[in-house]
C-alpha cells in the first residue's frame, strides 16, 4: 500500500522441519531417467529453482540367532540432516526410532558380530533438489543394491509443522505436479499422527516404508541407472 516491500517474514528461530510427503511416481513405460526428466521439466515450468542434490540411504542389519528372536536395524542417512544417523529397530511388532550423531555408524561396525549387514539390500534414493516458494521438492531415483527400482517424489512444505493443517495444500500441490498419480490420502504412517508436530524421523519412517516395498518388488524394472 505504501510501497513498502512486504517481505516474507523470515523466521529467526531455527526452523523445525516442515511437513514432508513422500510418494512413488510410476514410471509407466518410460525409463527412470526419462521419468525424472519429465518431472523436472514440470517443476521447472512451475518456477522452481534447483538447489543442489540430495541422498537418502538405508542399510539393514539383522541380529544373530544367539541374541534370541530376530531383530532388524535399519540405519538411514538423510543429506538434509548431514550430522545425523537415523536408525529404526524392529523387534517383534515394535519399531524403535533413534536419532544419533555420526559416531553411530562406527558403533554399528563394532557390533558387526551381533548385527550382521544384510547383503544386497542397500537402498538409496538420490537425485536433484528443487525449491519453489515455501515448498521443497526432491526427485529421487531409487536403487536397491544399484538396481533401479523406481521414482520417489518428496515434497516438503516448510512453514507448517502439523500435517493436518497443511495436508490439503500439499495435496493440491502434488496434484498439480504429479497429476493422476498424486496420492489421495495421507501416507499410512502419518494418518495416525496428523495432529502431532512433524519431525525429521517421520520422513525417515516414510522412506523406510517405501524402501521396504521396493525391496520386495520383483526384480525391479530391470533397468540399471548407470
Amino acid at each position: 500500500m505504501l510501497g513498502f516491500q512486504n517481505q516474507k517474514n523470515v523466521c529467526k528461530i531455527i526452523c523445525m522441519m516442515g511437513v514432508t510427503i513422500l510418494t512413488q511416481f510410476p514410471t509407466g513405460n518410460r525409463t527412470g531417467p526419462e521419468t525424472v526428466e519429465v518431472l523436472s521439466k514440470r517443476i521447472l515450468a512451475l518456477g522452481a529453482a534447483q538447489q543442489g542434490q540430495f541422498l537418502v540411504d538405508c542399510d539393514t542389519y539383522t541380529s544373530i540367532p544367539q541374541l534370541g528372536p530376530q531383530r532388524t536395524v535399519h540405519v538411514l542417512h538423510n543429506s538434509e540432516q548431514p550430522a545425523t544417523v537415523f536408525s529404526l529397530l524392529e523387534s517383534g511388532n515394535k519399531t524403535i526410532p533413534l536419532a544419533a550423531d555420526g559416531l553411530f555408524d562406527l558403533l554399528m561396525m563394532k557390533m558387526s558380530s551381533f548385527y550382521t549387514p544384510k547383503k544386497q539390500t542397500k537402498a538409496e534414493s538420490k537425485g536433484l533438489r528443487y525449491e519453489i516458494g515455501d515448498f521443497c521438492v526432491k526427485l529421487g531415483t531409487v536403487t536397491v543394491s544399484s538396481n533401479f527400482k523406481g521414482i520417489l517424489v518428496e515434497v516438503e512444505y516448510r512453514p507448517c509443522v502439523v500435517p493436518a493443517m497443511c495436508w490439503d495444500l500439499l495435496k493440491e500441490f502434488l496434484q498439480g505436479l504429479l497429476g493422476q498419480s498424486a496420492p489421495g490420502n495421507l501416507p499410512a504412517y502419518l494418518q495416525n499422527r496428523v495432529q502431532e508436530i512433524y519431525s525429521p524421523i517421520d520422513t525417515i519412517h516414510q522412506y523406510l516404508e517405501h524402501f521396504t516395498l521396493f525391496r520386495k518388488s520383483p526384480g525391479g524394472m530391470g533397468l540399471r541407472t548407470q
Partner: protein
Amino acid sequence: MSYSVDISVEAPIENQIQEITYDGTEIYQPPLTISESLAKYAQKIDFSRVSDVDVKKEESNEDSKSDADSKDAFQSSLWPWDGVRNKLRSALQEVCVLADVLAIAKEKRYLVLDPVQQEPLETKPMVQIYARKKALAGNYICNSLTFLKLCIVGAANVLLAGAEKLKTSQNEAARNRTTMDFHIELLRLRQNWRLKKVSNTIIGDLSYRTAGSKYLQTGTFEVTKAEEEEKSSSPPSSPLPGGPAPVKPNSALRVSIPSELQGVAYIEVLCQKDQEDLCSANINLLGSGPPATNPDMHWQQKLEAAQNVLFCKELFNQLAKEAVQLQAPIPHMVVGNQIMATVLPGIQLIIGLCHSTTGDKKQQNPAPSKSDHDHVLEHSLHQLLREVHHKNTHIPFPHPATGPLGPSKKRMIAGPMAADRYELLEMTKTETLLEQIVKQAQHFIMRMRTEYVLDTIAKEIRDPLISSHWNTLNSPTQSCVKINISTHGYDAVCRTPLVIHVGEKSLKCICRDGKVMNMSYEPQELRDLIMCHINQHQILAVQALAKTMGWQALGNSNHLGTGSVEPLGNASSCLLSSPTGDRIIAVRCEPQAGTQVSVAHSPRSDFFPSRLVTERKWEHLGGQFRDVRLDKMEGRNFLHKMELLMASLTSNS
C-alpha cells in the same frame, strides 16, 4: 611494695601433658605459637619490680632531699612547694605526651592502638573480694586489713603503670613502623598478582593470558625492594606540585613496568556523521578518569593501570586485525591508532586507541566534556573481549571422552536433535568483534533515529495523541517500542496499537491488523507509516464513535481511489448516517491535507410533489454534500467535534 615476689621466667623443656591414655602413652599439648607465648610471657612480667626501683630511687631522692632540707633549711624555705611543682610538671608532661599519642592514634595513619590483654588487672577485684571477706571475718584482723588495702592499692598502681608503659612502648614501635615490611608487602602483592622467582629477581605477570587471552605481548614486571635513600629523596624531586603530599606510608616494594605498558590508555568509540559526533564512548577499565601517572603511585594502582593498557592494546589489536581481514562492502580503514567502519550510509564508527605515556601529555587527551558518553557501547566493547577470553578458557568437554575437542555443545547435540543443513551452516558462522560492535552501533543509531521520529511526530501532531513505550528489556542489537495512537478523552472508544521492532539495519512494524511492515534504515519510511496509521485511526475512531451515538456506518474505505493523488499512501473515508437516516456525514482523511467532513441533508419531513420529483421516496436519495468547516467548530479535537456534529444533527431530526 616490698612484698613483691621474684618470678623466674623460663620455658618448660617439654610440652605439658594433656592426657595419659590407658596404655601409658602421653598426649602432649601442642606447643604455643610465637604470639601466644609472647602474650603468655607478657602476662608474667612483674612490673612492680621496675617501678619499685623507681620508687626506691624517688624515696632515696626524697630521703636525700629531706636530708638536704634538714641541712639546708634556707633552700627549702625558698621553695616550699618545690616537690609539688616537680610532680605537677612531670604529670603535665605525661598528660601532654598522652594527648599527643591520642591525637596521633586518632588519625589511624601512623599508629593503631590494639587492645592489650590485661589479665593481671582482673585479679584486682578478686583481691578486693578476698579482702572484704577477710574484713568480714572479724575486727581482730583490722590491722591486717588496712595493711592489705594498702598492698592492693599499691599493686593496682604498679599494674596500671606497667600497662601504661607497655602501651607507650607499643606506640613507639608502631611509630617506627611507618615503612611497611618488604615481606608483608610482597605477601600482599602475591595475593593479587602472579609472581615467580627467577634466580635473584622476582618477576610478575599482569597479562590476561591465564584468563584466556591469546595476545602475544607479554605483561611482565619486576619487583624490587625500594631503597631507603631513594625514598627519602624522591618526594622533593617529584615533579607534581599538586600531587598528594608524602603523607602515605612509603611502600617497601617497587614494581618496574615495561615502558610500553606505562601510562594511561583507553579506547574511544565515536559515531560520526559528516564530521559531527553522534555519540562517543570511552572505554577505561578503571572506570574513573585517567589516574595521575605519579612515580610514587602505589604498586597496586600502577599494576592495574598497566593491565588496563595491555587490555586496551589487545582489544585494539584484535579489532584492527579484523578490520583488515573483513570483506565489507565499504572496506574498513585502519589508519594509525584509528579504525573507521561505515555503519550506515553517511555514518561512520571510529574506534581509536588513546595511549598517553607521561603525565604531560594528558592535556592532549580529549577532555571529559563529552557528556553524551555512551555507557552501553563502552560496556559492550569491554564485554566482547571478555567473552572471547572466557570462550578460550571454557572449552566444552568432548562428548565421548575420545571424541574430538572443539565443537560446541550445540554442535554436539546437532546429530541427535537431527539438525538440518541450515542449522549446521548457522553454527559454523562466527562473528568477529568488529562485526558485533558494528552491529551494535547500527542498532544504536537505528534506535536513536526511531526515537527522534517518534518524538517529533508526537510533538507535531496533537490531535490523535501518540505515545510510545520502549521496552526496558532489550538486547544490544534488538529493541522494541510499542506505539499507541489514541484521542484524548476517547481512549476507550478507539485505540490503534503498533509495535515496532528495531533491528540492526531495518525496522519491522506489526500493525493493528497483524500486518507486518518491513522498513529500511531511512527514518522517513517510519514517519510515513505512522502518518498513514494516524489517518486510519481517525476514520476508525469516527466509526466507533458513531456506533456509540447510534449512527450507522454505511461504508468505509481505507484506500480511496477517488480524489487527488496523495504523495504518500491513500486517502481513507467513511460514510455515516443518522439514526433516522435523514442525515449523512462523509469523512475523508488524507495524510497530507488532513480531514474533510461533509454533511448531506435529506429533505424536510413535509413533501410537496413537483413535476420533476413526483414521489416522496426519491427525496431519500439525499441532497448535495456541503463541507463542514471543522476549524470553526467548537471542540477540543477531531473526535470531540464529530461528536458535537453528530449530536446536533441527531437532535434536529
